């Protein structure tokens, strides 16, 4: 129990558990497997993006172009659909090409941040406009519905293994993979080190530019995956469908205990942050809360969660002597 209490994800977990208990009393539907699968599937896109954002926020940067980047890949997928044959090869090709486009766009961000050393918020604000402007120019905002999709892709989106939709597996794979990278690989540890203290980490020989390049390219890679998830989830391509999503993504990461100033953040924490936002959205209708109160309740829970986490964190900090590299996940 003491071990659990010491975990920094504990505060978010506690709030998730409390809300879940309340909701399951209010609505009998809340605690059903079907509902939870819906919640997780519906938030797979936000989740995948939030995982990528966690790495960026750990290195004390931010990427506000994620939603635009994902939309750009989504639109590219829609364009590719016109040429792809209706077979399983198309699905495989999409899984190769979409992340590749994502990496290309993401590394563009990375290049500007690491080589030219422009603050990430400025770079990504710029690329946000570049990406969404280009998308608007190319698509003219036209919505593409599923009649133009290859049947094989539609079949892929409907796959269920053991009753669990494929998107959830994809999400789980991304989460587990990134957790592994962060915990067990050199580049993952470098990410944490740079976030903890950039200067000392460079002194120990960590290549600062390479790490920055990595986090932004990886974000691009995950945006590519998220684009596939989004396309198969909505069975449509809407150039305006993700507008403003970057704020939700960043909110989920911060709720999950990541520190905007860098050095602190973990994959399990981010997953809990996504889950917290998700069950609040879901629970509002299930609990039949009046529409106009929903925003108030959502806002209040976010404020409570973040302040609880901050107080906890500060208390822990006082007990510790200052250590530059903090242990994560």
């Amino acid at each position, binding site marked *: 129990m003491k071990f659990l209490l010491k975990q920094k994800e504990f505060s978010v977990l506690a709030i998730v558990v409390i809300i879940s208990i309340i909701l399951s009393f209010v609505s009998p539907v809340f605690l*059903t497997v079907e509902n939870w699968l819906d919640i997780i599937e519906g938030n797979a896109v936000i989740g995948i993006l939030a995982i990528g954002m966690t790495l960026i926020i750990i290195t004390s940067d931010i990427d506000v172009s994620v939603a635009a980047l994902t939309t750009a890949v989504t639109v590219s997928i829609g364009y590719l659909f016109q040429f792809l044959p209706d077979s399983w090869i198309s699905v495989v090709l999409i899984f190769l090409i979409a992340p590749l486009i994502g990496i290309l766009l993401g590394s563009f961000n990375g290049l500007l941040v690491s080589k030219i050393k422009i603050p990430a918020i400025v770079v990504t604000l710029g690329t946000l406009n570049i990406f969404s*402007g280009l998308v608007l*120019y190319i698509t003219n*905002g036209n919505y593409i*519905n599923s009649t133009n999709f290859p049947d094989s892709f539609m079949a892929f989106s409907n796959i269920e293994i053991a009753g669990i939709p494929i998107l959830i597996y994809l999400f789980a794979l991304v989460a587990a993979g990134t957790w592994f990278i962060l915990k067990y690989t050199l580049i993952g540890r470098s990410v944490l080190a740079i976030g903890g203290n950039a200067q000392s980490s460079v002194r120990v020989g960590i290549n600062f530019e390479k790490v920055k390049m990595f986090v932004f390219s990886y974000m691009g890679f995950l945006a590519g995956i998220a684009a596939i998830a989004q396309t198969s989830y909505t*069975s449509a391509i809407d150039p305006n*469908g993700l507008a403003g999503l970057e704020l939700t993504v960043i909110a989920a990461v911060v709720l999950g205990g990541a520190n905007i100033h860098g050095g602190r953040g973990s994959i399990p924490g981010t997953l809990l942050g996504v889950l917290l936002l998700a069950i609040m959205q879901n629970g509002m209708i299930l609990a039949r809360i009046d*529409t106009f109160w929903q925003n108030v309740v959502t806002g209040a829970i976010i404020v409570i969660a973040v302040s609880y986490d901050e107080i906890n964190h500060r208390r822990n900090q006082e007990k510790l002597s200052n250590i530059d590299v903090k242990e994560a996940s």
Partner: protein
Amino acid sequence: MKKLWLSLTVVIVGLILLTGCVSEQSAGSGDSGEGGGTGSEETSGNSEEGNSGESGSDGGGGVAVVPKLVGIPYFNASETGAEQAGEDLGVNVEYTGPTEADAAAQVKVIEDLISQGMDTIAVAPNDPASVEPVLKKAKEEGINVMDWDTPADKELVDLSIKQVDDEEFGRHMAEKLVEAMGTEEGKIAILTGGLSAANLNLWIDAAKSELEENYPDIEIVSDKIPTEEKQQVAYQKTLDLLKSYPELDGVLAVSTPAPLGAAQAVQEEGLQDEVSVVGSALPTDSEPFLEDGSLDTAVLWNPEKLGYLTVALGKMLAEGEMPEDGQEIENVGEITVKDDGKTVIMGPPQDYTKENASDFDF
């Protein structure tokens, strides 16, 4: 020294790029200006006044149509109609707007149009209050000012074009929903684009009063539910609704992405026969849902015709005429003019169903 040269080159290249953009734009407007010579001749007084602000361009004159934003299917369709009207009536049409539904950006667009010396400016304001000063300025310059799609300040405009009567539209959607449900008692939910959208609220209120007055046994299970103008949000919320209210019979979805999301949820749960969905959506977007009955009827107006009507009336206004009640506008149909003499209603709402959805290309 090297640095100085580098920065100089950057600045010069930047300037060249910028001027490149500018000259392309003015060349474009000049081209269309030539096409619309007849429109501007009759009202040369106005265009001269406006042209003095611009350096010797022969553009300007004609009708400017400003949408809330460019690059969404709805406003693309009205652009097609507006340009068609320009060709048919021989009037210069300038269809331009901000790339986001942003009030400040829209004001800038209107400022530019004023200095281009248009005869008529028709605006679909993102925020009626924030376009007020710039519309006043346009009027002072002798430009005819009208609104279309969304009303601006009534005192300010010479003409106000509405696609449908809000009251009629809301009531019509409610009727269609009851018709699709096939029963006059049951439970329904209402999805909306956003809680603060004035026109959506008007439709919902009209739909509610229609239900109250004529179908008192229909119960609305919850307050209107916002969907952020996004299909996936409407989809998730409808899934939640279906779980929370298993006895639900119908969903009324206003704002164009909302019916698609609601229909997608119904489709996925295989509830096409149990839950009816009616809402405001464009026909090509809703086709896959109309086909299998997950969306029963999409109700909207014809945005192409709306663009056409805007230009046609804009031209009339520039020629000093006012439309009359019951007047027949070619390619649009009979229009209604309200008692105030300047509110024009394009016509009754149009239903898009399984049978006719494939006939439209917007």
